[in-house]
């Protein structure tokens, strides 16, 4: 039992004490927190950072690195970090750091411009930049594509921030006094403005883009007519003088007005970006559509002073076109200078007559040959052009197309181009001719013979008068004496103290008395009618004979 003897309380094995080389102190939380805060700030900044873009401007006016801000609706969406001259030294490049939420401002079609205090026709803008310094205005584009380099606009775009409304394009031959910012008015209320304009690719016309604000854009229909309402419109035409103005501001900076014609069935709102024609004035704008133009040439053998391009062409008094050219020509055969007048007519302006005519004659308006033949028949019926005086005051002429059955026959060549309509001399010319004819007629009168006859007649009259004086007048004198005597005797008869008059008075007195006694008798008989049979009663009182008071 050795084991029992050596039994001792067991000694615990010595534990190995290990000292950690580094004991991590709680204080390490402090730098960790600091680092975390730092990292979070960096990450926050990095997340906040939007795209960096470059905008080129013509000048760096108002741009300061690290100071100039980029604003949208006056909210800062970025700032300029550097402003550098471009390598070719023709422009200035501003590097802009956009913020994260302004990412879509890097869209390809975004626009940027420098906002500074401006005084323009449309008013004063950007006064606040006088204090705060210029900033870059921005307008976000719609494109999905992102771009890095943009070209800054020189002037702020007139319409920004997705303003509700619609854009339309106007087509015109020249810009006139219009400009960006010119107002577009509807019934003289400003409802929009000119946004931009550019020359057409071929350089032959101008496309003006206008913007019409939201509630008013509904008034633009497919049938709406636009016209240039700029300035004062003074017109001295065959129709007399006309002066028209729009509002004062459009007088200064030009303007466009629009309206649909009064009678306007089946009209509907126009689609965005529809192209309209810009007319020169309200009158031509609201005129019915002209339709297809037909160019004609007239050849006059007379001077046409007062006939200008633009003068109206009337057919039976209806205006259907205008003069487009007046040119002098030289006729080698006759050695004379005829005047070639080019006119443009719009047959559609004849309205109902035109449609009826087309229907009746089965005429195709697009076939020029057909049109020439039709005109040929008209000319056979006496259709002639004539320059007439429209206004005696201004001496303006207009062209009248009328049927003159007495006009001499003319051979019409339907294959000749341009179609030529024969002419007859103008009205003033005709007047002169008529006057001439009258003078000639007067000349032809036998004035001498008439004068001789008249002289003989006068001699005869003279002798007749002599005879009258000699014989008739003494007789008349005697008769007059007789009449005088008769009147004298009549006078003496009617005098106051004449015996005839006295007798007359007496007779009248007698008659008075007689009538009184007759009345008494009648009264008595009225009271006593029996006395007619029985005679007068004896006891009758004397006053019964008195005339009754009744």
């Amino acid at each position, binding site marked *: 039992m050795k084991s029992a003897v050596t039994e001792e309380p067991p000694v615990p094995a010595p534990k190995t004490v290990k000292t950690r080389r*580094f*004991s*991590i*102190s709680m*204080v*390490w939380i*402090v*730098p960790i*927190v*600091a*680092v975390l*805060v*730092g990292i979070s*700030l960096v990450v926050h900044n990095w997340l906040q950072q939007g795209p960096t873009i470059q905008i080129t401007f013509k000048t760096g006016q108002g741009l300061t690195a690290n*100071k100039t801000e980029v604003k949208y609706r006056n909210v800062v969406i970025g700032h300029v970090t550097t402003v550098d001259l471009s390598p070719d030294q023709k422009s200035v490049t501003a590097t802009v750091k956009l913020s994260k939420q302004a990412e879509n401002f890097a869209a390809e079609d975004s626009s940027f411009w420098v906002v500074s205090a401006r005084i323009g026709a449309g008013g004063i803008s950007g006064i*606040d930049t006088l*204090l*705060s*310094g210029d900033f870059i205005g921005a307008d976000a584009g719609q494109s999905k594509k992102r771009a890095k380099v943009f070209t800054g606009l020189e002037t702020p775009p007139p319409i920004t921030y997705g303003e509700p409304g619609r854009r339309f394009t106007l087509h015109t031959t020249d810009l006139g006094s219009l400009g960006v910012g010119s107002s577009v008015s509807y019934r003289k209320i400003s409802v929009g403005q000119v946004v931009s304009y550019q020359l057409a690719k071929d350089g032959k016309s101008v496309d003006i883009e206008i913007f019409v604000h939201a509630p008013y854009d509904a008034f633009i229909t497919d049938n709406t007519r636009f016209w240039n309402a700029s300035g004062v419109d003074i017109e001295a035409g065959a129709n007399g003088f006309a002066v028209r103005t729009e509002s004062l501001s459009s007088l200064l900076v030009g303007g466009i007005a629009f309206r649909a014609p009064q009678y306007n069935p089946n009209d509907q709102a126009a689609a965005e970006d529809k192209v309209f024609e810009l007319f020169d004035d309200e009158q031509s704008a609201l005129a019915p559509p002209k339709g297809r133009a037909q160019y004609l040439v007239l050849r006059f053998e007379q001077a046409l002073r007062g006939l200008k391009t633009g003068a109206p062409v009337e057919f039976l008094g209806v205006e259907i076109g205008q003069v487009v050219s007046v040119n002098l020509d030289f006729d080698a055969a006759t050695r004379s200078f005829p005047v070639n007048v080019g006119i443009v007519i719009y047959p559609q302006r004849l309205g109902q007559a035109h449609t009826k005519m087309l229907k009746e004659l089965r005429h195709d308006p697009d076939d020029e040959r057909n049109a020439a033949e039709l005109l040929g028949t008209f000319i056979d019926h006496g259709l002639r052009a004539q320059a007439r005086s429209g206004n005696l005051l201004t001496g303006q002429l207009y062209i009248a197309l009328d049927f003159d059955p007495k006009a001499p026959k003319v051979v019409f060549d339907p294959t000749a181009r341009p179609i030529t309509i024969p002419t007859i001399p103008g009205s003033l010319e005709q007047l002169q001719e008529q006057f001439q004819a009258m003078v000639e007629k007067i000349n032809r009168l036998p004035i001498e013979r008439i004068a001789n006859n008249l002289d003989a007649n006068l001699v005869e009259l003279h002798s007749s008068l002599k005879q009258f004086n000699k014989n008739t007048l003494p007789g008349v004198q005697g008769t007059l004496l007789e009449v005088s005597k008769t009147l004298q005797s009549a006078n003496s008869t009617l005098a106051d103290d004449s015996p005839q008059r006295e007798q007359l008075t007496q007779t009248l007195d007698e008659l008075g008395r007689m009538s009184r006694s007759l009345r008494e008798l009648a009264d008595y008989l009225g009271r006593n009618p029996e006395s007619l049979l029985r005679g007068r009663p004896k006891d009758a009182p004397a006053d019964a004979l008195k005339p009754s008071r009744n």
Partner: protein
Amino acid sequence: MLDTDQLIICEHCDCVYHKVPLKKHQKALCQRCGAVLQRYNGMTLQQRLALSITAGVLWLMANFYPVMSISLKGLSNSATLWDSVLALADGPITFIALVAAISIIIAPMFQLAILIWVLGFALASKRSPGFITFMRWLESLRPWSMLEVCLLGAMVAVFKLAGLLDVLPGIGLFALAILSLLMIRIAGRDIRELWDALP
């Protein structure tokens, strides 16, 4: 030869004393002039290193984030410490810019870098390469580090401008404030204990 390791000399009156181990809230005073000879230092090497790294991070923040931004009617401006040095350099007193750069940016940066370097090795109970040079540098850099002066100046500017402009203290200012407090704690005199700790 007396063992000089355990002796301490009063800075002000050159009295020599024996070092005594101190407990919390204790400090040793000179008997002759009453100046503080020793203070209880409760900070371990690890804590000091951790705070040094924190200070390093704060230094980065103070230098890369604007100290303050001012705005007046939409016109706004903000500046970092480095911007202020550059602004001084632009003017006619370029020399002052150099002084400012040394005292508020470069000196603290070197202090922190040396501290982290030295303490990092000290944690492994080793003297770092160039220990003696760096420890001397730490002593000589201390008067050049004027972060607290800069902080005071910035705060005076904030308060003075607050009436005239809209002043917004930035992240940099807060980092600067914490950094200057930390610097007092970690880059103080007691760093010389390292001489004793690392024979």
